[in-house]
């Protein structure tokens, strides 16, 4: 199976099926990993662009992850070849180089422990997916996400044809 990650699947036609910035994902993520309420320790973040544009962002689990490649201590690692990139808190020195190279800024420094913290898919059952009230967050992989986009584009083409 391909590399898993958290994907954002929205449906612009249905106002209920778009991220509604309730930030439940952030809260549950922080709660699951640290047993506290503190969104800034969550590994997923809802970015608000204003005018009703909100999009959650988290690790894309890149094919060739820069964070893992640059990590000087090997604190970032993959258990299996197609597994999620994970952080070994014990050997992370908090040099923040992974922050610097991450293309989407999915890695943060934990404000309390001061080690790199990133999405680890909660060992298989992601809390953000379970608790998302709009159910726009799904476990996915690059291929599936691409298919989803294609579908959206196909729909668009359809409308164009209908217009003519």
């Amino acid at each position: 199976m391909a590399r898993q990650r958290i994907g954002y699947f929205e449906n612009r036609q249905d106002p209920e099926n778009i991220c509604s910035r309730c930030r439940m994902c952030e809260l549950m993520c922080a709660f699951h990993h640290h047993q506290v309420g503190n969104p800034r320790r969550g590994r997923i973040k809802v970015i608000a662009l204003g005018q009703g544009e909100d999009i959650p962002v988290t690790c894309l689990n890149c094919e060739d992850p820069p964070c893992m490649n640059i990590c000087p201590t090997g604190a970032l690692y993959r258990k299996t070849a197609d597994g999620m990139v994970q952080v070994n808190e014990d050997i992370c020195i908090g040099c923040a180089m992974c922050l610097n190279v991450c293309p989407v800024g999915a890695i943060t420094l934990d404000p309390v422990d001061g080690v790199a913290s990133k999405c680890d898919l909660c060992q298989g059952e992601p809390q953000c997916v379970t608790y998302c009230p709009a159910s726009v967050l799904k476990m996915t992989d690059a291929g599936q996400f691409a298919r989803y986009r294609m579908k959206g584009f196909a729909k668009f083409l359809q409308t164009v044809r209908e217009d003519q």
Partner: protein
Amino acid sequence: MSFFAGGYAGQILYVDLTDGSIQKKPLDREFALKYIGGRGFSSRILLDELKPGIDPLSPDNLVILATGPLNGTPTPSASRLTVAAKSPLTGALGDSNSGGYWAPELKYAGFDAIVFDGRSSEPVYLWVEDGKAVLRSAKHLWGQKIHQTSELLKEEVGDDDIHVCAIGPGGENLVRYACVVTDEESVGGRTGVGAVLGSKLLKAVVLRGAQDVRIADPKRFKEAIDAYRETLVGEVWTETLRRLGTPNLVAHRQKLGIWGAKNFQRATIDGWEKISGEAFREKFLLKVMGCMGCMVRCRRYSAIREGPLAPTYTKGPEYDTINALGAKTYVTDPAIILRAHHLCDEYGIDEQTAGSSIAMAMELYERGILKKDQVDGVELVFGNGEALLHFIEKIPFRKGFGDLLAEGTKIMGQQLNADYYAIHVKGLEVDASDPRSLPTRALTYAVATRGSCHLRGFPYIDEFIKPEEAMAFFGTPSVSDLHGLEGKGKMVAWSENWVTLADLMGVCKFAWYRSRSFPMLIKRGLELMNDIFVATTGLPMNSEELYRCGERVYNVEKMFNLREGFGRESDYPPLRFFKEETPDGPAKGAKLNQEEYDRLLDEYYEARGWDKKTGIPTPEKLRSLGLP
């Protein structure tokens, strides 16, 4: 630093604006156990620290921003902030409750509540970050609207990820019903706390926090919130609220014929479909939004994309928007309602009082009590949307006739000696619906401790409680009868205590009490909430004790009002409801009956354990609640 196992941040921030001194006081454990948080804290602090009979806009008044123990935890819909002060609009206890993201952020920044005292010599704003607080000059922000204010602040801080609680021009110009706006869209509207902030020259409170809100017993907490979620998903009310938001009530009001249209001269609206929840969803809804950790997601985000008023992007509308700016003024153009709502939020004035005041002015104008030259030559008649927008632009700056409108209906009535047309209780306008056909609701609105309010109690129980449940719980089946009176006083008292808990915990009432079965209310409101509370804070608590906390706080508020001189006579609905019959609609001909109402009130006082003549809580009652 906090000795609480979880939930509370354990600190209260006291800011004296006069000399700019800032001090942190640890939160007392007993205090927390007695008053839980939110409204409990604010009411108690106001009762203790305010001198009786002070001018609400004087430096002596306090402004309290308080959160509950559950704010900041992943509890569903635990997002509510309580802003409180002695109200400049009513002179009684004034508090208002808003959602959004600000209350949790205050916990992350390390405080349970902020208390503002005194008056600053120049405009300032308070910057709070991770337990550190500092006052900064806000000269450059003074006079800015809500959005500009937070834009400027974000630029100044160099971070978009901050949370701003600000007042608009309304608050600066001491409009008596100015509101406090958090995160640009969540409005603590009623009772005009914004004006008090304005009088203190405090423009904004800006937060950024990364501190933990600890949870005493994570395992139990997880189970509790999962159970709580279960009660929410698949709940009829939740579904409706998500689909239509509070505007779904429009249809309901029309069905029962309890609109307060045309300043309560009509009970139904012709062409109400245009302003129904469906209509707004069809035409304007961009997407459904939710406050922090919300499972219900009743918040709308709407946009006017074409027409003369485009582009307007705004949160809302809520039912009360439509009621105040639409029904009362009889403006049935949804776009204008939305625009007016947007302007109210931008200028930071309470749309409900604003709508009511304008509606009252419209009636006075139509009755010839107000002359055209008095109202700046505007054709101020019902249904005139331009007039509505015109004055909403004027009120925040107290321009022209806006100066009088900015005083609220009570003072308008006194100045134009037209008290009869001022539809308010204790100075706060009747908002939700026309209670003439439903005395129980009249009672709820009338006895509410902040003036007429439909969120202080939960009279709607009678819409769905089953007779046997009523028999079992309130000792009379007539509680389940929509128009029956017996046992209603008791029911109202119970619902008030019970609803108060939501404000204490900082949980949203829509996740809390919107339900279609009475047992569910008990389960969710008391048992589950008790579970979550205990799991979060690790404090000893049980559902009975929790209920008594609600009752205690309510009595504290009553004591505050009594001290400010609001006795039994102030627990009556406006005269109009006794004199005039409901003109039309299903409830045609209904009006309140003096004897009936007195009986209800007596029953209510009895259930509360208050003196029937004066409404003063009896000593034994207070003792039983552990109130000195």
